[in-house]
């Protein structure tokens, strides 16, 4: 016979105001399995918890029902208390008589009846509970950081500095990400390269950081603490160990027409190239799309002809003999315990062709086809000392300094008609920065900024935008731009000044569009590989918008920077450090404990139809061969890997013979609840 204790909480007046707690305790006391039933003002307080603990000892309880608030609030509290008193934590359940009873009903007899029903149902459930032990899982204390921009670098350095191993996978040939393209940074106007390069070098040289550049994540298997990642190391054609970085290959390369990605297409580069002078590792890579040899090879293969060596001047010029045209992609497997996703962003483009059906370009801006209409990152390159103009702000069309420049904020952002309704967060700030950089570069020039609102909420941000408007002399016009076209050699910008209530036209030499921040291309495919979710735009979903902002719903995978939402540098770095803290907490023990809410298969009755396997989103179902003594396979049945199982119970419901039980929500427990509640 079960010996169950019931503890009804008043929650001060929160429950007692509408529920007659004493009556609830009294009526449940009659239940044949209940050996003690009490009510108390604050069950979660120390004296309240002691009441539970004492009753466990005194009555030898084998089950506890606490009727109080939501189990989301205090189930852990009471399970811990019971555990301290020697009762298995999983023999404790809560009846939610606050949020789902007292707070939504008036003080009527029905409310008390409902509370009693909920408690009785929980008593019936607890009778079916069995002791469970937390699942212990070994942890591989190595972190995988996807993305080598500022967020990825920060997370990697924080983790490595704490003495744990880190693997960085960066898609591009160099670390650095978009931050390395910026000229100066707001709100201090310090040089981006100057603050970033040392961190890149630190990461590169750190003994605990292993760096895979020009590589992507191919596959992630396993579960928290025990992932196995497959990394696709793209064929670089340059052996970075023997390469001295002398640059002789680039001097001889005849293919010079590839648009330079780092300079946002504002100049061209050779097919063998180092993305930028401070690249880490500072070793070139051969871009196979533009290399004459690889182009010839692709053509030969397509026509079914033999492959012959073409050009290969770089290899001949290489004194270190580091260039080879033989190698292809390489797949590398690594074991990791946690993953930080820091894949960053791309800019929305105003062009006609859009990557998503819901996005639309800006036909009214001529789809941005005019060379003197640039986006924010292009302007960064024009303003950067290492950029194509050596830091002089010049019109791409004619190399002249723009006497009048127009900045248009919220291009794409906050514009549902174009498909993006969110605020990109950083454009108000960088446009202010751009306006200042322009005024420093082109003396006496006119800068006009079209804005919708100025959102400058960070530390020192508002003062910064004010400086742009009030000291640098940028004309801030609150309004939108309806058309840009070229007439008489000028870019005619037609807009409206909504504060002045007048349409206005600016004859400009250059227009800078603060285009929206979007997640990296391929983010959805990556998310699917990692089994994490993303929103309609492809930004990765955090587990909770406020309380778990850097975690995902997949245990052991964390988010930093623009992969989750538009972020500026300080926010990205803060997020990165937060993920590092989460990773380090996970790595602080050699084993981690997990709630034992997992599915189990009754192998005696399993018929091996594997409907469970088809329904499992986590791949937790394995095949187990049942053998006789001579080793002959009799049957193949399902088996669930408790480390992978997340405890949803979809397999249990899909099992036709009900041979799968979900601990914590077993058939017996659910059945008992239904029986008690339906009558």
């Amino acid at each position, binding site marked *: 016979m079960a010996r169950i204790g019931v503890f009804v909480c008043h929650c001060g007046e929160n429950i007692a105001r509408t529920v007659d707690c004493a009556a609830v305790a009294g009526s449940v006391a009659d239940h044949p399995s209940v050996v003690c039933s009490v009510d108390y003002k604050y069950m979660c307080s120390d004296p309240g918890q002691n009441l539970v603990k004492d009753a466990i000892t005194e009555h030898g309880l084998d089950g506890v029902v606490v009727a109080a608030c939501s189990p989301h609030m205090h189930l852990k509290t009471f399970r811990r208390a019971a555990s301290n008193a020697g009762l298995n934590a999983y023999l404790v359940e809560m009846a939610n008589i606050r949020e789902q009873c007292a707070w939504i009903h008036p003080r009527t007899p029905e409310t008390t009846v409902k509370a009693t029903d909920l408690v009785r149902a929980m008593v019936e459930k607890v009778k079916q509970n069995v002791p469970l032990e937390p699942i212990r899982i070994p942890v591989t204390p190595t972190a995988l950081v996807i993305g080598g921009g500022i967020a990825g670098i920060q997370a990697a350095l924080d983790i490595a500095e704490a003495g744990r191993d880190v693997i960085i996978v960066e898609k591009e040939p160099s670390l650095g990400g978009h931050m390395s393209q910026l000229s100066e940074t707001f709100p201090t106007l310090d040089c981006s390269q100057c603050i970033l390069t040392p961190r890149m070098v630190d990461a590169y040289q750190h003994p605990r950081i292993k760096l895979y550049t020009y590589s992507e994540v191919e596959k992630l298997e396993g579960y928290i603490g025990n992932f196995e990642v497959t990394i696709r190391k793209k064929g670089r054609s340059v052996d970075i160990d023997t390469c001295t970085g002398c640059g002789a290959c680039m001097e001889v390369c005849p293919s010079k027409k590839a648009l330079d990605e780092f300079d946002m297409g504002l100049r061209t580069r050779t097919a063998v190239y180092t993305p930028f002078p401070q690249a880490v590792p500072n070793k070139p890579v051969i871009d196979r799309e533009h290399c004459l040899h690889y182009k010839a090879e692709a053509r030969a293969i397509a026509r079914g002809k033999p492959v012959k060596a073409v050009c290969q001047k770089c290899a001949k010029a290489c004194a270190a003999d580091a260039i080879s045209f033989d190698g292809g992609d390489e797949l590398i497997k690594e074991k990791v315990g946690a993953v930080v996703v820091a894949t960053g962003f791309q800019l929305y483009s105003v062009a*006609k062709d859009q990557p998503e059906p819901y996005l639309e370009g*800006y*036909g*009214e801006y*001529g*789809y941005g086809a005019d060379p003197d209409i640039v986006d924010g990152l292009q302007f960064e390159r024009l303003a950067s000392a290492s950029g194509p103009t050596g830091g002089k702000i010049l019109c791409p069309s004619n190399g002249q300094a723009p006497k009048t420049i127009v900045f248009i904020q919220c291009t794409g952002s906050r514009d549902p008609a174009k498909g993006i309704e969110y605020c990109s967060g950083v454009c108000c700030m960088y446009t202010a920065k751009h306006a200042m950089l322009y005024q420093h570069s082109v003396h006496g020039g006119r800068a006009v900024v079209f804005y919708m609102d100025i959102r400058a909420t960070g530390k020192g941000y508002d003062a910064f935008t004010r400086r742009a408007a009030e000291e640098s002399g940028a004309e801030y016009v609150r309004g939108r731009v309806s*058309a840009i*076209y*070229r*007439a*008489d050699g000028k870019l*005619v910008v037609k807009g409206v000044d909504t504060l002045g209530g007048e349409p206005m036209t600016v004859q400009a030499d250059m227009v800078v569009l603060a285009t929206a921040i979007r997640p990296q291309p391929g983010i959805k495919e990556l998310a699917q590989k990692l089994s994490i979710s993303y929103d309609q735009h492809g930004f990765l979903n955090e587990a909770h918008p406020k309380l778990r902002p850097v975690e995902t719903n997949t245990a052991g995978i964390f988010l930093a920077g623009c992969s989750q939402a538009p972020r500026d540098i300080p926010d990205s770095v803060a997020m990165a450090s937060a993920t590092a803290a989460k990773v380090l907490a996970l790595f602080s023990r050699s084993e981690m404990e997990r709630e034992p809410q997992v599915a189990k298969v009754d192998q005696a009755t399993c018929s091996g139809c594997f409907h469970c396997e088809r329904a499992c989103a986590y791949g937790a179902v394995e095949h187990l061969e049942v053998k006789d003594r001579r080793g002959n396979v009799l049957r193949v049945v399902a088996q669930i890997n408790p480390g992978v199982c997340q405890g949803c119970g979809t397999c249990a419901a899909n099992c036709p013979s009900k041979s799968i039980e979900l601990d914590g929500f077993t058939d017996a427990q659910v059945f008992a609840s239904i029986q008690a509640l339906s009558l």
Partner: protein
Amino acid sequence: MRFGYYPGCSLHATAREFSESLLTLVKALDVQLDEVEDWACCGASSAHATNHLLGVALPARTLAIAEGQGLDNIVAPCAACYGRLAGAAHEIEGDAALKGQVAEILKRPLGTPPEIINVVGFLQSLLPEIQPRVVKPLDGLKVACYYGCLLLRPHKVTRFDDREQPESMEQVCAAVGATPVAWNKRIECCGAGFSLSRTGSVIRMGREILDDARAAGAEAVVVGCPMCHSNLDMRQPAMNRGQAGAGALPVLYITELVGLAMGLDPKAMGLQRHYVSTQPLLDRLSTAVAVAEGEVS
């Protein structure tokens, strides 16, 4: 080929040449237009400015009649008519309650409205018929294709062409041998219905359009809307007044242009009705043709 046809009021009055050129053209193309019986005014632009329900019910009546007549589509050459008919169809399709209300007022059942086709889309679809019949290619006549507002807007109603960078008129003009120029005021408003109430504004707006067309080297402006035509044609002397170097710029309906390329009689198409004389243009074209033929022979 057969199409449903809604002439609308303008084509019987100020835009007679639009009607004449269209009908001459379809005759030459062997295309039959079935006029909607007992059609009424589309309501533009006073009805929808006065009473929303009236603004929908007026064109909806025409749609219902056409549907009853078994017409799958209606060619509405006037851009304003096109806008009102397509707008009404869009509104009643998206709002069952409104549809019921309108059906109640009209005392007619409303099913699926016919497809509404504007004059540019109509000609585009007929290009395979038109091109073999082009006997007087326009010798690269530089034309400024002027869309105005109503062919394209609101885009969710018209779903026609690119709303900001359209190409359809250029396509049609190029197909008959004209050279569309690249210019900037293609989709600007001409002032439309303010022609009488705020003439000054209309003159200013029209002047900007014509100036831009001239700057781009256009020899003629091509339109698909009676309102645009009357503003740019009838008021052109006022627009050109005091403008140094502002020569008269003929404003042609796109149907007229296509008809000229097909060698149709300018008079039958009403080209003599224009305020800005089309004669210099016709002379230039016939010289060009004569030269071309001379070379051949």
